[in-house]
């Protein structure tokens, strides 16, 4: 029995059959209305609550993630601040060792200079000239009777002697003054020296003060981080994002360098490992070239780690200093060897290219020499240079790599947080859609059976006045009784 057979209740008239089916369906829907309303409402409530619950769980997960991100961020910030403060203290230590180690020498220089100055000062002090003894003699002679001619002569002699003594004293005084001036002029460089030493000391002390100011600033940030202040969190988050993008950009440049490096050595590698062997679908020569580049990057990481520029491997950082220095030399030796190998491979690449060009030229009938270009040594030298330099350039990948790894933890956390927030929003939205969708379905249901509903309402409206009249009569009877 086909669908058409069931559908066509009146075989000749599909329209009439359709109408009958419609009436039956509307009738059934009308009868099932209260149950259907309840079912729709219950289903919509259930879905709404389920979505709400899921959204709440997601938000809780987001909160936990946020807390974890903050922990990671603050831990990273604390570590960075500790490292900076440690470096500042190392600098201060170096500065104190370098500058203040000379302090005793400077002090000795100063004391010597001051002693000499004191000596010179004493030497330059002015001794008052003694009054001539003649003055008393003159007084005694002057008291003798004035009419004595001998007295006049004596006085004349005394006068002459005094004039002579006066001249000698003036001469002596001038000589002494000149000596004092010489001593004073000798003091000038000593004063300059003292001023210079004092200036130098002032400069060194100022440098130390500047460093201590920087340490104060870093310590303030460090305390902020330890106190988990919102300001510190904001600053660290923004700094982490900046670091992520900068490090990503530098890494992209480094990857570009590595790709160039790869192309320099992949072709000549075929001479070493063969051009026809494949490992897991990839040319063995390409894999070998890639391995060499990765080994260079690894050596660079070890070198940077041993130099304590990066801190990706705590084991290396914790190594004994002698062992660490040995490791630096070993990593550098490997790098040097690999750079030399790459340089050789770059040379080989050029030779192979020439050979290929020569072969192709001979195959197309240009002769073997037709393909050899002039000034070929320039490209050969450039390729060899690049082959030698690029491994060393790749060493510095360690620095952006460390920043990228550290900042990516925060950035990925933030990204996951954003995704969870979005998911929670979508779940809430879906929940609301279910709730209001349930109401809408109930209305649509009623719309489908609007005819029986209308009839029901009409019948109810007609029955209402009669009911009301009966009620009024009952009230009146009760009142009378």
């Amino acid at each position, binding site marked *: 029995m086909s669908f058409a057979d069931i559908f066509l209740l009146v075989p000749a008239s599909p329209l009439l059959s359709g109408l009958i089916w419609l009436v039956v369906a509307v009738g059934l829907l009308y009868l099932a209305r209260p149950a259907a309303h309840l079912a729709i409402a219950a289903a919509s409530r259930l879905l709404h609550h389920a979505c709400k619950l899921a959204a709440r769980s997601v938000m809780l997960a987001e909160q936990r993630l946020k807390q974890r991100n903050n922990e990671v961020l603050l831990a990273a910030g604390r570590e960075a601040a500790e490292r900076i403060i440690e470096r500042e203290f190392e600098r201060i230590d170096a500065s104190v060792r370098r500058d203040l180690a000379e302090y005793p020498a400077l002090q000795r220089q100063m004391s010597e200079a001051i002693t000499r100055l004191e000596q010179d000062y004493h030497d330059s002090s002015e001794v008052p000239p003694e009054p001539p003894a003649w003055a008393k003699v003159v007084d005694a002679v002057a008291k003798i009777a004035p009419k004595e001619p001998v007295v006049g002569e004596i006085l004349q002699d005394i006068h002459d002697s005094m004039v002579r003594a006066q001249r000698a004293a003036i001469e002596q005084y001038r000589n002494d003054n000149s000596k004092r001036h010489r001593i004073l002029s000798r003091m000038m460089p000593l004063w300059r020296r003292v001023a210079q030493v004092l200036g130098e000391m002032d400069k060194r002390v100022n440098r130390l003060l500047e460093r201590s100011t920087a340490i104060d600033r870093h310590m303030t940030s460090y305390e902020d981080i330890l106190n988990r202040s919102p300001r510190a969190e904001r600053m660290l988050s923004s700094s982490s994002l900046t670091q992520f993008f900068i490090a990503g950009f530098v890494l992209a440049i480094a990857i570009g360098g590595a790709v160039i490096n790869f192309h320099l050595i992949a072709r000549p590698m075929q001479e070493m490992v063969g*051009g026809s*062997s*494949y490992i897991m679908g990839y040319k063995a020569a390409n894999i070998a070239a890639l391995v060499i580049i990765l080994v260079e990057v690894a050596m660079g990481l070890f070198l940077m780690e041993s130099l304590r520029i990066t801190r990706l491997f705590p084991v290396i950082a914790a190594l004994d200093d002698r062992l660490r220095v040995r490791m630096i030399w070993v990593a550098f030796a490997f790098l040097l060897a690999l750079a030399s190998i790459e340089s050789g491979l770059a040379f080989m690449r050029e030779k192979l290219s020439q050979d290929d060009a020569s072969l192709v030229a001979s195959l197309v009938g240009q002769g073997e020499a037709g393909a050899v270009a002039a000034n070929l040594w320039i490209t050969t030298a450039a390729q060899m240079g690049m082959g030698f330099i690029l491994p060393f350039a790749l060493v510095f990948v360690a620095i952006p790599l460390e920043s990228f790894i550290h900042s990516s933890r925060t950035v990925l956390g933030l990204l996951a947080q954003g995704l969870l927030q979005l998911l929670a929003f979508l779940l809430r939205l879906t929940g609301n859609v279910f709730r209001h969708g349930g109401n809408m379905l109930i209305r649509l249901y009623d719309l489908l059976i609007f005819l029986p509903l209308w009839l029901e309402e009409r019948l109810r409206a007609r029955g209402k006045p009669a009911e009301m009249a009966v009620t009024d009569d009952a009230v009146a009877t009760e009142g009378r009784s």
Partner: protein
Amino acid sequence: MKRVFLLLTAAATLLLSACSDETTHSRGVYMLLDTSGTYTKELDKAQQIINFVLAKLQPGDSFAVARIKTGSFSEKDIIARVTFDGQPSRANLQKRQFREEIDKFVAGVKPSAYTDITGGLLQAVEYLDEKSPGRKTVLIFSDMKEELAAGYVREAIPLQMQGFEVVALNVSKLRSDNIDPREYTDRLAYWRQRVEAGGGTWRVLNDLERLEALFID
């Protein structure tokens, strides 16, 4: 400790050797040169094609050139054959030697009375199956008109060409084709049918300017 190290080394070697494969990525090319009648005059074009193929083949690939004559199902008809060394410099040397052999052959070739294309194809299949490269290509430099000497049985032999790509190059039109072009199309259709019935693919490449199409994967 030493034993563990040895075991690890052995395991790594086994793993790498299991992963490494040389044949599946290589290509094997077998070229048949028609030396019957006046077609020998076209051999300079064949030389161009051989040079082109030589320039395109990579270390590890195999290449053989054989002539089509009265009876071509014979290793003696292979003019030159080579499997290029893994080292590019060695491979280039082999290519130079190969070209010299071909030049020598072209200079001294004598036209044959009959054209046993089927025999040549059977030889090509045998050679390439033996080499088992990743891609097998048979190039036929011929007008594709088979003329067999009395007693040679070729018609009833089915070609087993699964995984083979057959390219007919420089299929020149004969005087009779000009009179009735259906002969030409029927001839090509016949070979197409035979190759495809054997499981291979068939292509015709008459424009030698488009030889690059031979190496498009």
